[in-house]
């Protein structure tokens, strides 16, 4: 007990400053904006004061500008045609229509009216390519840049970042996954310390983080002492990695319980108007939680939006799936900007593959399509207001600037200042790179 307790206390002292460097003026402006419903559909694009201010804050980004990542994962395979790469007039488009954005020449689907007004902050990547056409494999490939194999588990970018970078805040986990099942982001062969901390329901926050009131400090420490004694004995006789992982999980849990920043997980401390602005969907509240964690120095936060596997009723489904993402994402970008955090926070939206341009009419659905699909990047040194790469008129083929998923990951690594070419060795001595030799897309940066 005493050992890990002292360690965690030292940590929380060292980081008690936290990273709340939002400047108060713009934050208040944001809250006011939120309160008066300015993020509603009708008034999208308002908040002129905050926008003007933010523009000056965006400054001159450089590579390695990003300190942390918020990774929005559209689980199931997001249809590119119905979201970020509409093809108005094409037969493959179906009933979805396209709308103009605040950047000339870039259109989004009708389902992203809010994002359309913040297009200047965002770089679309419309030529993503994957080699994997099934969910488990595709999701794995997106997160790790390696193909799923029976012999080894590769780390996801969040785990790499947690392992390779000194944490901004050592009392909080470096890697958190919100709203998904807990395996979408992998820790791979890295220590379980770098696995994501799973938060199922952002509204509920981190469960059981507080000691029951009936248990005094002194009593808790007595318990902990006894527990350590028994566990050390057990680990001595059976020293397997999975047993060691439980030791680490308990140490981390204790550090967290004693962290001054534990309240980061508690959305009820947030202004109601801000909570409304993000949308009261699980995804929207997940974005808000991500912002709270980002501002307290958590390095990699994944927020999952599920249900994108639209083999059936693709077009009806879009009406349910897109609005929470449009609202949550757009609000997140504006809020980060208002707090001065967008400069060094990279926001990513990605999916494992796109969906077939051909519509299966019998069930009004689209099937898996890894050949060409879309994602986006914002903040963290990315130049907003651009659409990278081009697909053909029906959204079938990449015409220019293909971005393989490992290139996309390398771009994230590059933004973070992680060297995509450097080799790291697994415990079994095999060399790996954070993005599997992917090449960063330099044109995306400002």
């Amino acid at each position, binding site marked *: 007990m005493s050992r890990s307790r002292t360690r965690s206390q030292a940590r929380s002292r060292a980081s008690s400053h936290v990273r709340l460097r939002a400047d108060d003026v713009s934050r208040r402006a944001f809250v006011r904006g939120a309160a008066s419903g300015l993020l509603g559909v009708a008034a999208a694009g308002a908040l002129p004061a905050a926008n003007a201010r933010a523009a000056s804050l965006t400054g001159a980004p450089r590579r390695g500008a990003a300190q942390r990542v918020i990774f929005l994962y559209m689980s199931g395979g997001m249809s590119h045609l119905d979201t970020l790469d509409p093809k108005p007039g094409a037969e493959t488009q179906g009933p979805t229509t396209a709308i103009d954005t605040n950047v000339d020449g870039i259109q989004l689907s009708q389902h992203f009216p809010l994002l359309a007004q913040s297009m200047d902050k965002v770089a679309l990547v419309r030529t993503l390519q994957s080699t994997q056409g099934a969910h488990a494999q595709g999701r794995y490939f997106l997160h790790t840049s390696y193909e799923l194999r*029976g*012999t080894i588990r590769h780390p996801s970018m969040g785990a790499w970042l947690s392992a390779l970078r000194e944490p901004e805040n050592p009392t909080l986990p470096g890697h958190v996954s919100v709203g998904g099942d807990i395996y979408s982001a992998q820790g791979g062969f890295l220590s379980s310390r770098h696995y994501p901390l799973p938060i*199922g329901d952002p509204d509920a926050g*981190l469960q059981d983080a507080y000691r029951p009131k009936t248990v005094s400090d002194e009593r808790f420490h007595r318990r902990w002492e006894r527990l350590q004694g*028994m566990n050390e004995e057990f680990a001595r006789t059976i020293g397997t990695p*999975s*047993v060691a992982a439980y030791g680490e999980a308990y140490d981390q849990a204790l550090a967290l319980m004693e962290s001054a920043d534990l309240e980061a997980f508690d959305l009820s401390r947030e202004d109601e108007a801000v909570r409304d602005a993000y949308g009261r969907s699980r995804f929207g509240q997940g974005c808000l939680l991500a912002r709270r964690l980002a501002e307290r120095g958590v390095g990699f936060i994944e927020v999952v939006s599920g249900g994108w596997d639209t083999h059936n009723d693709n077009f009806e489904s879009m009406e349910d799936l897109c609005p929470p993402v449009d609202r949550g994402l757009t609000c997140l970008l504006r809020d980060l900007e208002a707090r001065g955090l967008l400069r060094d926070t990279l926001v990513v939206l990605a999916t494992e593959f796109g969906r077939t341009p*051909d519509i299966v*009419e019998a069930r009004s659905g689209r099937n898996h399509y890894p050949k060409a699909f879309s994602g986006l990047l914002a903040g963290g040194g990315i130049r907003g207001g651009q659409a990278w790469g081009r697909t053909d008129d029906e959204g079938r083929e990449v015409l220019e600037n293909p971005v393989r998923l490992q290139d996309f990951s390398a771009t994230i690594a590059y933004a973070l200042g992680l060297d995509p070419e450097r080799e790291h060795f697994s415990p079994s001595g095999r060399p790996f790179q954070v993005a599997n030799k992917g090449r960063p897309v330099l044109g995306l940066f400002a």
Partner: protein
Amino acid sequence: MNPITTLIGTAALAAVQAATWLAPDAAASKRSPTFDPVRGATDVAGAAARIDELLEAHWSAQGLRGGDIVDDHAFARRAHLHLAGRVPTVEELRAFVADRNRDKRPELIATLVRSPAHQSRMYAFWADLLRVVDRLGNQVSGAPYEHFVKQALADNMPYDAFVRELLSAEGPAMQRGNGATGYLMRDRGMPEDNMANTMRVFLGTRIECAQCHNHPFDHWTQQDFVRLVAFQGGVQYVHGDARARGRELIQAGRALRDQNQQAYRIFRGLTRGMAAGISGSGTGLARLPKDYAYEDARPNAILTAEAPFGPAPELDIAVPAERPARRGRRRSANRGRNRDNFPEADSRSAFAAWVSSAENDRFAQVIANRLWKLVMGRGLIEPVDDIRDDTLAADPELMAFLTQLVVDSGFDLRFVLEAICSTTAWQREAQAEPAPGVAAIPTGPIIQRMTAEQAWDSLLVLRIGDADGTLTAPGFDAEAIYEQYDRVAQMSVDDILAEARSGRRIRPQNPRLAQRQKLREEARALGRQLAQARRQRDAERTAALREQIDALRQQLSAGGGLVRASELPNPAPDGHFLRNFGQSDRQQIEASSREANVPQALNLMNGLVDEAMAKGSAIQSALGALDQPAAKITHAFEAILGRPPTSRERREWLSDVRRFGDEAITDLVWVLLQTHEFLFIG
């Protein structure tokens, strides 16, 4: 007439018999042991002895010796956790240790594998593999599918018959006795994914890459894949009878929706899932994708069904001549295979027979290897579902023997599991998981973290005592569905409309089911109000409604949800203990996990133990009934860790009790539940 001749062998006949065998009445009467040895091992003891012999030979060739034999306490804990899915109660533990019978270990195994608790434990295994879920689609309940799996376990249905049923079932999905249709319904509209899953689960073969392109490392081609999919060609996810009146029902529903919302809701409830089911015996034909990129065939060409290995299924299907493509009809091209109307050719049962044949080596081998892994901790072949032509088992002779044992036992998986657990090897000291790449078979079972279900069910023993008493007969949840299906299937569309308009809701006969349905309806009504409150941004009302819904949900899960994992929703909801501890979300095959994470530690430290193990729990009452501190300490150790304390442990805790009184006993329970020793199976 159908110009295509179809020849099916005896295996398909067996599939038909299996289907009859599964009919509800027959199933109950045929619960007799199914082991009918053909050749090879004739009994559990004989099979166990042969396994031991092969293992000893393997270890000695590797310069290894088997680990020590564990004591009775450790064995009882291991056997209960692996086979009954939970820790033994203190009474069970003490009775076993006190038993002077020489054969008590194999006898314990024999008893456990025949207990309802064992079905519950194996259900977790199969639900993970087969991705059993409560909803197969928007309107389609998964309860009949769950019923099928649980019933097969209760009846110890031969594994080959089980798989044949899953692969060839036809008919209404909501009708009694048709739960096996859930296997195809699970991947509704995705016959390719379903085929990839079938190959992986039952034949340990990863062929999904070939769905889009030739396999980069194995020899599978995209054509191989399409030829497999052809076996399930022409499958429709609507049962035959429904097609006739489906359109009529849809039109009636639409008309009603515009007139009377309330009646429409009842109408939807009545017709929910009525059409769901599987029709089509298989055309044996499928098309290559339109973007097929290789030179050896033209895109969109029609291929006939063909098995990629093993004895060829007996099927004789000719490729029909293509109608000339009509010009200017691009839209119809988008319809893909749905446009084709090939004749039925019974290719599905031929496929089911091929997969489950005793002659198809991989079928028996894969399940033998999975069972071995289940209780030994590591397969003789790893990974268990990526077997290739050149894959070599850690001990080929042992693998061959286990495979043959599966076949010779008449695919009696309970027998095979009983044999493996009756070996001397399974009584040896637990071993650390070997590093990847180490070929030798460990000299005892591998220490494993409890599965989510084992952890939940073990805590349940401590919380309520008789955890197995919460198990219900298979199919309880499905009863209401069967009842409604039978009733509505006989009604005319007019009758259904009349009932919907009358505003009456007919509840199931069984009072417990009726009560459940009433609660569900209430929850749905509240859900609609909640959606409205959200739209109106009425935060107060939203919160109040949420609370009401939560309370209802709590009521809906029997006994406040304090039931064995196999009785809880499939899968348990997000945030539930089971999910935090790695229960599969049932989206992917074998997505369960035993990884450590911080929420588990928080849950055990701060959530569960002080609350749930406090007043009213079985373990607290048992401890409270004891006078002597030493007896309390022993009881706590036995209840949680399955062993008495060491003398040092006893000394330490006695001194704590002297200093802090009963508080120290609560601390003891807390500490023991946090230990690695509790969470791991040695």
